[in-house]
């Protein structure tokens, strides 16, 4: 009987140890994988932290989350249009990443050569995404259309790269600026009509997307917001009918405020009459810099309300905190 009891105790003790080991392993396993739902609604299981990522879009999060050593490839656009990326790469050559083609036409062979464990791209090129997935690669498709969705993207990248705290800090810095804008424009009674022109002077940002949300956030009214699309081509007389008080031009558009002022067809628009047409900085909106774009727009729309705000000073503080580099240093590498 005594022997039997001892055996049972022994089995029980060993089982406990085995269970403990099993639970520990299980916990480790759970901690090292994460299920992410992307813009397509697809669930992707990712082993975290990601060590070899290719970032086709949202590359400004590389310095923001400080994930330089976890990224092996970027879209050629990073080097073409992103001043922050260019500034860092110029200062430290070893940070330069392999280019995997442009955002919409990826060099799939190059991507495969890099053997990444994750690719973050936009939700545009579904064919390429499907092809990459067929090759066994994990792809997360993003397309943030609101500030909340942009935060979700930042948080998601924070999680998969093991930089949750840093992601929260970035969001916190963005919120500080958004909060400042919200507070200042809260009391504005007469809201100005603001439109955002895109690649050509008759292409407007409509009711879906970050630009529309930013216009509302800065206390403006987007007359094109009634069109439930991301962008639309409209006639010039439609713009005259809307009669915006302020016009912003997309930073990378091939024309500027001078073109608008010089075109007599626009002469009856309030924004033109009062010289309130501004070309935005050529920055990505899928970036923490969205908050600075909003501040720039707010300051131009309501100059009296933001007269005490020194934009460059705020931007410099933001850059140093989020990207770890001076705004003035990056400016040297921006395309103007």
């Amino acid at each position, binding site marked *: 009987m005594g022997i039997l009891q001892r055996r049972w105790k022994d089995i029980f003790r060993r089982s406990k140890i085995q269970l403990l080991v099993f639970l520990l392993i299980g916990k480790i396993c759970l901690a090292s994988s994460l299920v992410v739902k992307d813009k397509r609604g697809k669930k992707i299981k990712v082993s975290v932290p990601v060590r070899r990522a290719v970032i086709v879009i949202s590359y400004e999060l590389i310095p923001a989350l400080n994930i330089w050593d976890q990224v092996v490839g970027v879209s050629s656009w990073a080097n073409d249009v992103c001043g922050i990326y260019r500034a860092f790469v110029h200062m430290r050559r070893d940070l330069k990443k392999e280019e995997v083609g442009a955002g919409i036409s990826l060099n799939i062979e190059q991507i495969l050569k890099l053997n990444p464990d994750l690719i973050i791209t936009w939700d545009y090129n579904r064919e390429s995404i499907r092809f990459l997935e067929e090759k066994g690669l994990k792809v997360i498709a993003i397309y943030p259309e609101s500030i909340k969705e942009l935060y979700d993207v930042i948080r998601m990248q924070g999680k998969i790269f093991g930089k949750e705290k840093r992601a929260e800090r970035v969001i916190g810095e963005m919120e500080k600026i958004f909060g400042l804008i919200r507070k200042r424009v809260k009391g504005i009674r007469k809201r100005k009509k603001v439109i955002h022109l895109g690649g050509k002077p008759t292409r407007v940002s409509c009711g879906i997307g970050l630009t529309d949300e930013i216009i509302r956030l800065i206390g403006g009214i987007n007359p094109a917001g009634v069109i439930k699309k991301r962008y639309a081509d*409209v006639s010039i*007389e439609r713009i005259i009918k809307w009669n915006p008080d302020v016009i912003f031009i997309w930073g990378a558009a091939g024309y500027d405020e001078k073109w608008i002022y010089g075109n007599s067809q626009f002469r009856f628009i309030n924004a033109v009459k009062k010289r309130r047409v501004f070309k935005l900085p050529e920055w990505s909106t899928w970036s923490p810099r969205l908050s600075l774009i909003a501040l720039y727009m707010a300051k131009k729309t309501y100059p009296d309300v933001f007269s005490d705000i020194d934009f460059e000073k705020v931007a410099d503080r933001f850059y140093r905190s989020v990207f770890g580099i001076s705004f003035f240093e990056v400016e040297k590498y921006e395309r103007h």
Partner: protein
Amino acid sequence: MKDIKKALILISPIFVGLGALFFGAYSIDPHLVGKILINEIIHLSDLKDTPEKAIVLDIRLPRVLLSATVGAYLSGSGVVLQAVFRNPLVDPFILGISAGAAFGCSITIGFLSFFPIQIMAFLFSLVAVFSAYIIAKTGGDVSRLSLVLSGVVVSAFFTALVSIVKFLVDPHKLQSIVYWLMGSFSLSNWRYFKISLLGLPAIFPLFLMRWRLNIISMGDEEAKALGIDVKKERIIFILLSSFLAAIATSICGIIGWIGLMVPHLVRMIVGPDHRDLFPLSLTFGASFMIAADTFSRTITRFDIPVGIITALSGAPFFVYLMRKTKREVWSA
């Protein structure tokens, strides 16, 4: 009956164009539109410079005139090339004009932003046509088949170059290229309209030579027997009509379908005689383009690409006419 139809088609651009001036996003009292127009013609009184006046005279009027001109050029070019190539599937872009213009536009937006897009698009569309001709000539005789084939080659070549430019440029410029390629009248102004008039010197000789298209479309042997220098005249026709298409494309981008469809529509209505077919294709093309553009800018809050409207409205009309005529009209 046919004469009435011809007369209606001939004067249709005046009525369609005038009608189009009354439609737009900005609501203007029709009386005021009439007053502004009449005052502009016979200057009854000094009208103040109001938004309404600016919209009618500086936005709608040049847009209507430009769309009419472009519609006429593409249709006229289409009817000539269909006759010269004796092929009902030919359109004004057969010799690579659209691909050449697209390349001119792409490199301007991508790398030569200091240069006007229209000029580069025009230059490269002519480069495409001449390249097609030179390639066709390398085999000796410039036959219709060799021209069509060289046109296909040149188109493919320039399309590939456009793809390379699109691959190389940044996303922002890429978007601008894509917009331009879609074709639109949204930025029409008096300057563009005046530029479009450069095509008129090509219209006059084509108009005067239109009867010869009847002979050329009969076939080389018959034309030669009737004393026509087929090779020489074919080249003249091709160059003049390509010039028209190049002007149209360089101003407003690539608007497809109209140059292919309008000649067929008119042929079904008035028959295949090019003495009528050419001028009536010009006027019908003008009316059709004005109507399509007016529709594209008024049906929704945003502009629908005019090429979509021409295809959507033209195709059912085409089918209707085909069923109605039920006869072969493709021969002089």
